[in-house]
Protein backbone atom coordinates (compact mmCIF):
# COMPACT_ATOMS: atom_id res chain seq x y z
CA UNK A 1 0.00 0.00 0.00
CA UNK A 2 1.18 3.52 -0.75
CA UNK A 3 -0.75 6.75 -0.65
CA UNK A 4 -0.18 10.50 -0.91
CA UNK A 5 -2.92 13.00 -0.22
CA UNK A 6 -3.48 16.73 0.21
CA UNK A 7 -6.16 17.75 2.71
CA UNK A 8 -7.64 21.04 3.88
CA UNK A 9 -8.69 19.78 7.30
CA UNK A 10 -7.03 18.60 10.52
CA UNK A 11 -4.97 15.43 10.06
CA UNK A 12 -6.35 12.54 12.14
CA UNK A 13 -3.29 10.53 13.16
CA UNK A 14 -5.25 7.77 14.92
CA UNK A 15 -7.24 6.80 11.83
CA UNK A 16 -3.99 6.77 9.83
CA UNK A 17 -2.10 4.61 12.31
CA UNK A 18 -4.91 2.04 12.24
CA UNK A 19 -4.31 1.51 8.50
CA UNK A 20 -0.88 0.06 9.32
CA UNK A 21 -2.03 -2.91 11.36
CA UNK A 22 -0.23 -5.83 9.72
CA UNK A 23 0.85 -9.12 11.38
CA UNK A 24 3.83 -9.30 9.01
CA UNK A 25 5.25 -6.02 10.28
CA UNK A 26 7.31 -5.64 13.43
CA UNK A 27 8.04 -1.96 12.93
CA UNK A 28 6.00 1.18 12.41
CA UNK A 29 7.66 4.61 12.13
CA UNK A 30 5.86 7.93 11.73
CA UNK A 31 6.94 11.54 11.31
CA UNK A 32 4.80 14.57 12.12
CA UNK A 33 5.68 18.08 10.96
CA UNK A 34 4.19 20.72 13.29
CA UNK A 35 3.91 24.48 12.88
CA UNK A 36 6.48 26.14 15.15
CA UNK A 37 6.39 29.69 16.46
CA UNK A 38 9.77 30.87 15.21
CA UNK A 39 11.96 30.94 12.09
CA UNK A 40 15.29 32.74 11.61
CA UNK A 41 14.91 34.57 14.92
CA UNK A 42 11.45 35.89 13.98
CA UNK A 43 8.24 35.12 15.83
CA UNK A 44 5.82 33.28 13.55
CA UNK A 45 2.10 33.87 14.14
CA UNK A 46 0.69 31.38 11.63
CA UNK A 47 1.31 29.71 8.24
CA UNK A 48 -0.47 29.31 4.95
CA UNK A 49 0.21 26.31 2.68
CA UNK A 50 -0.61 26.28 -1.03
CA UNK A 51 -0.05 23.56 -3.64
CA UNK A 52 -0.24 22.89 -7.34
CA UNK A 53 -2.61 19.98 -6.66
CA UNK A 54 -2.35 17.97 -9.89
CA UNK A 55 1.45 18.13 -10.04
CA UNK A 56 1.83 17.68 -6.27
CA UNK A 57 -0.23 14.49 -6.38
CA UNK A 58 1.85 13.17 -9.30
CA UNK A 59 5.12 13.94 -7.54
CA UNK A 60 3.93 12.81 -4.12
CA UNK A 61 2.78 9.47 -5.48
CA UNK A 62 6.14 9.09 -7.23
CA UNK A 63 7.95 9.62 -3.90
CA UNK A 64 5.82 6.94 -2.25
CA UNK A 65 6.44 4.51 -5.12
CA UNK A 66 10.19 5.11 -4.84
CA UNK A 67 10.07 4.45 -1.10
CA UNK A 68 8.43 1.08 -1.72
CA UNK A 69 10.88 0.25 -4.51
CA UNK A 70 14.04 1.27 -2.64
CA UNK A 71 13.38 0.07 0.91
CA UNK A 72 12.16 -3.23 2.28
CA UNK A 73 8.87 -1.84 3.62
CA UNK A 74 5.26 -2.94 3.36
CA UNK A 75 3.30 0.33 3.33
CA UNK A 76 3.86 4.09 3.20
CA UNK A 77 1.41 6.96 3.55
CA UNK A 78 1.95 10.73 3.48
CA UNK A 79 -0.72 13.34 4.15
CA UNK A 80 0.00 17.07 3.72
CA UNK A 81 -2.37 19.73 4.94
CA UNK A 82 -3.08 22.94 2.97
CA UNK A 83 -4.62 26.28 3.90
CA UNK A 84 -4.20 28.35 7.04
CA UNK A 85 -2.50 26.59 9.98
CA UNK A 86 -1.92 27.79 13.52
CA UNK A 87 1.05 27.23 15.83
CA UNK A 88 1.13 23.57 16.91
CA UNK A 89 -1.02 22.31 14.04
CA UNK A 90 0.20 19.25 12.18
CA UNK A 91 1.19 20.18 8.61
CA UNK A 92 2.41 16.80 7.39
CA UNK A 93 2.21 13.18 8.52
CA UNK A 94 4.29 10.26 7.21
CA UNK A 95 3.82 6.63 8.23
CA UNK A 96 5.80 3.56 7.18
CA UNK A 97 5.66 -0.06 8.31
CA UNK A 98 8.08 -2.88 7.67
CA UNK A 99 9.15 -6.24 9.00
CA UNK A 100 12.16 -4.61 10.67
CA UNK A 101 12.93 -1.14 12.07
CA UNK A 102 15.95 -0.17 9.96
CA UNK A 103 13.98 -0.10 6.71
CA UNK A 104 11.06 1.71 8.35
CA UNK A 105 13.27 4.46 9.79
CA UNK A 106 15.18 4.93 6.53
CA UNK A 107 12.08 4.97 4.33
CA UNK A 108 10.27 7.43 6.60
CA UNK A 109 13.26 9.79 6.42
CA UNK A 110 13.43 9.39 2.64
CA UNK A 111 9.73 10.22 2.23
CA UNK A 112 9.71 13.42 4.29
CA UNK A 113 12.99 14.63 2.77
CA UNK A 114 11.81 14.05 -0.81
CA UNK A 115 8.35 15.50 -0.16
CA UNK A 116 9.99 18.67 1.13
CA UNK A 117 12.47 18.83 -1.75
CA UNK A 118 10.37 18.15 -4.83
CA UNK A 119 6.61 18.31 -4.29
CA UNK A 120 5.11 21.66 -5.37
CA UNK A 121 3.80 22.86 -2.02
CA UNK A 122 4.60 26.33 -0.71
CA UNK A 123 4.60 27.73 2.80
CA UNK A 124 3.94 31.37 3.58
CA UNK A 125 5.04 32.48 7.03
CA UNK A 126 3.25 35.31 8.81
CA UNK A 127 5.23 37.11 11.50
CA UNK A 128 4.16 38.87 14.63
CA UNK A 129 6.38 41.88 13.92
CA UNK A 130 5.19 44.60 11.55
CA UNK A 131 2.45 42.48 9.97
CA UNK A 132 5.03 41.01 7.59
CA UNK A 133 5.01 37.70 5.72
CA UNK A 134 7.08 35.84 3.18
CA UNK A 135 6.94 32.79 0.96
CA UNK A 136 9.61 30.43 2.24
CA UNK A 137 12.11 29.38 -0.42
CA UNK A 138 11.76 32.55 -2.49
CA UNK A 139 13.22 34.86 0.18
CA UNK A 140 11.35 37.96 -0.93
CA UNK A 141 9.11 39.86 1.45
CA UNK A 142 5.64 39.83 0.00
CA UNK A 143 3.47 41.78 2.42
Amino acid at each position, binding site marked *: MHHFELVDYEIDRQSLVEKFSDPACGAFVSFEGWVRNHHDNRQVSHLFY*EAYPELALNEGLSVMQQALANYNINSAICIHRLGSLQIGDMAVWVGVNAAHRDAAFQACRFVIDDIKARVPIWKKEFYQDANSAQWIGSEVNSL
Partner: protein
Amino acid sequence: MSQKVVCLKYFSRFAELTGKTTEEYSTRVSSVEELWYELDKQYSFGQPISTVRPAINHQFCDWQSSINDGDLIGFIPPVSGG
Protein backbone atom coordinates in the same frame (compact mmCIF):
# COMPACT_ATOMS: atom_id res chain seq x y z
CA MET B 1 7.29 30.42 -35.24
CA SER B 2 3.56 29.92 -35.17
CA GLN B 3 1.15 31.64 -32.85
CA LYS B 4 0.07 29.54 -29.87
CA VAL B 5 -2.38 30.14 -27.09
CA VAL B 6 -1.45 28.51 -23.78
CA CYS B 7 -2.90 28.55 -20.29
CA LEU B 8 -0.43 29.78 -17.66
CA LYS B 9 -0.69 28.81 -14.01
CA TYR B 10 0.87 30.90 -11.24
CA PHE B 11 1.50 29.86 -7.65
CA SER B 12 2.68 31.37 -4.35
CA ARG B 13 4.88 34.43 -4.93
CA PHE B 14 4.36 34.36 -8.70
CA ALA B 15 0.59 34.50 -8.22
CA GLU B 16 0.99 37.50 -5.93
CA LEU B 17 3.35 39.24 -8.36
CA THR B 18 1.10 38.77 -11.38
CA GLY B 19 -2.14 39.19 -9.48
CA LYS B 20 -3.38 36.05 -11.24
CA THR B 21 -3.56 32.31 -10.71
CA THR B 22 -4.25 31.55 -14.38
CA GLU B 23 -3.81 33.46 -17.60
CA GLU B 24 -4.62 32.73 -21.23
CA TYR B 25 -1.51 33.83 -23.08
CA SER B 26 -0.68 34.18 -26.76
CA THR B 27 2.93 33.70 -27.84
CA ARG B 28 5.16 32.89 -30.80
CA VAL B 29 8.10 31.44 -28.83
CA SER B 30 8.96 27.74 -29.14
CA SER B 31 10.31 26.55 -25.79
CA VAL B 32 9.29 26.95 -22.15
CA GLU B 33 12.63 28.65 -21.53
CA GLU B 34 11.87 31.32 -24.13
CA LEU B 35 8.40 31.68 -22.64
CA TRP B 36 9.87 32.20 -19.15
CA TYR B 37 12.12 35.01 -20.36
CA GLU B 38 9.25 36.60 -22.30
CA LEU B 39 7.06 36.57 -19.18
CA ASP B 40 9.93 37.70 -16.94
CA LYS B 41 10.21 40.89 -19.03
CA GLN B 42 6.54 41.55 -18.36
CA TYR B 43 6.32 40.57 -14.69
CA SER B 44 9.91 40.82 -13.35
CA PHE B 45 9.65 37.64 -11.30
CA GLY B 46 12.96 38.33 -9.54
CA GLN B 47 13.68 34.61 -9.37
CA PRO B 48 16.80 33.07 -10.99
CA ILE B 49 15.80 30.56 -13.66
CA SER B 50 18.09 28.01 -11.97
CA THR B 51 15.72 27.96 -8.98
CA VAL B 52 12.54 27.54 -11.05
CA ARG B 53 11.16 24.34 -12.60
CA PRO B 54 8.81 24.35 -15.59
CA ALA B 55 5.82 22.04 -15.99
CA ILE B 56 3.64 21.25 -18.98
CA ASN B 57 0.22 19.66 -18.55
CA HIS B 58 0.80 18.77 -14.86
CA GLN B 59 4.23 17.15 -15.39
CA PHE B 60 7.68 18.62 -14.79
CA CYS B 61 9.55 19.15 -18.06
CA ASP B 62 12.92 20.34 -19.42
CA TRP B 63 13.47 24.01 -20.14
CA GLN B 64 14.01 23.11 -23.81
CA SER B 65 10.60 21.41 -24.09
CA SER B 66 8.46 22.67 -26.96
CA ILE B 67 5.17 24.34 -26.22
CA ASN B 68 2.05 23.59 -28.20
CA ASP B 69 -1.24 25.32 -28.68
CA GLY B 70 -3.53 24.55 -25.75
CA ASP B 71 -0.75 23.53 -23.33
CA LEU B 72 -1.16 24.23 -19.64
CA ILE B 73 2.14 25.65 -18.42
CA GLY B 74 3.32 26.34 -14.89
CA PHE B 75 6.53 27.83 -13.56
CA ILE B 76 7.29 26.33 -10.18
CA PRO B 77 9.11 28.58 -7.69
CA PRO B 78 11.26 26.95 -4.97
CA VAL B 79 9.07 24.58 -2.99
CA SER B 80 8.74 24.68 0.79
CA GLY B 81 6.32 22.02 1.92
CA GLY B 82 6.62 20.03 5.09
